[in-house]
């Protein structure tokens, strides 16, 4: 195996192990930053940081390692964009709210008509996810898109496993509440 500290191999190894995860890095930054241009700046900066600290990479999971750097770069470069979780306490009961207004949400098997609606439905879900707090958006993207384990997410965020579980539940429930609320508001507009 190549020694990561040997200079000629370093760039090559980095290109093999870290560069391929650029889509995942960009997507995470895109969800954590307010706009596409800032997200691209973050990815660029995160890659520079990753390359400079490549010695600390132990070679087990390049994607998780890079995503942790992307996430921290978002924090330090644009800490002001961080939105805090709402003060209202999380209520377990909200999980029971049945949402019947968004077909893709309520039915796993969508009929052809529902598929037609799905495009605008996804646009709506995107908007509502954007309105979630930073720490909700990050667990959702790491779990739902990157499909990382709770353990990997815990290590990226530097929090205990139980916190990952409760944040995920909270994020999913809050999103569902927003979807439901959106459809209750529509007739009034």
């Amino acid at each position, binding site marked *: 195996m190549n020694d990561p500290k040997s200079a000629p191999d370093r760039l090559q190894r980095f290109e093999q192990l870290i560069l391929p995860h650029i889509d995942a890095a*960009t997507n995470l930054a895109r969800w954590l930053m307010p706009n596409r241009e800032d997200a691209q*700046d973050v990815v660029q900066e995160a890659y520079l940081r990753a390359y400079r600290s490549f010695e600390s990479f132990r070679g087990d999971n390049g994607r998780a390692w890079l995503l942790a750097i992307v996430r921290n770069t978002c924090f330090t470069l644009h800490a002001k964009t961080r939105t805090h979780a709402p003060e209202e306490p999380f209520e377990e009961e909200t999980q029971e709210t049945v949402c019947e207004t968004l077909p893709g949400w309520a039915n*796993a098997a969508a009929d052809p008509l529902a598929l037609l609606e799905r495009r605008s439905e996804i646009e709506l879900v995107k908007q509502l996810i954007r309105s979630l707090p930073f720490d909700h958006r990050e667990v959702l993207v790491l779990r739902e898109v990157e499909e990382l384990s709770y353990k990997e997410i815990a290590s990226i965020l530097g929090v205990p496993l139980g916190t990952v579980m409760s944040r995920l539940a909270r994020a999913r429930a809050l999103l569902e509440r927003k979807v439901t609320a959106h459809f209750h508001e529509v007739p009034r507009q």
Partner: protein
Amino acid sequence: MNCADAKKLLHPYLDEELDAPSAIAVAEHLQQCARCAAELERHKAASGLIKAAMRPEPGAAVDLSAMRRMLEIEHRPAEATHRRRWFALGAPALTVAALLAWALVPSLPGSGRSERYVYHINSSDNATSALGNIAFHLETAPKAHFVVVTHNEGVDFLLRGASDGAGTPFQPRVAALKERGVQFRVCLNTLRVRHIPQQQVIAQASFVPSGIAEVGRLQIEEGYAYLKP
């Protein structure tokens, strides 16, 4: 296992994060309890929607070859010395990265903030000249970001089958610009007021709640320059 216990475990069950005994206990409960089984189905559907909404947008990634060149520069000790000097001067990290990119990597944006233009179109009468303007603008500023925001009669040229006075369809021209990174946004308020179904809008365009609000937001929040063709 009762419903309260099962409900707490539904997300980890779906995420395959439970140990075998707990997973079996949940599965057994789900066979007996239609209510919890229905809730699991709802979580599954929600998860599918979240995945679809959050997955990477095609073409959104940073240019890989530009990134590779940036790393090669970072790799060279000579330039690295330069960079350290900038650090010593107290320039913020992002500016340094941007400066480095500007000086040595031609295909990266020219400064911390790239050029950004919003084209505001509220009448499709001049859509032909607007698309032409953008194409020329793109030639002069190939690295700039372009967003076209349409509302009122401006949405018409982004509807399926739309063509100009000479009968030439708009869609291929829109698709070609989109291909080069130009984004087209359509006002949902306009569609609602004019009773135009969203399905009638061509796939190259995306939607915003209000076109006019988007024109304002891009200028205030994202530093876009306003252009009215």
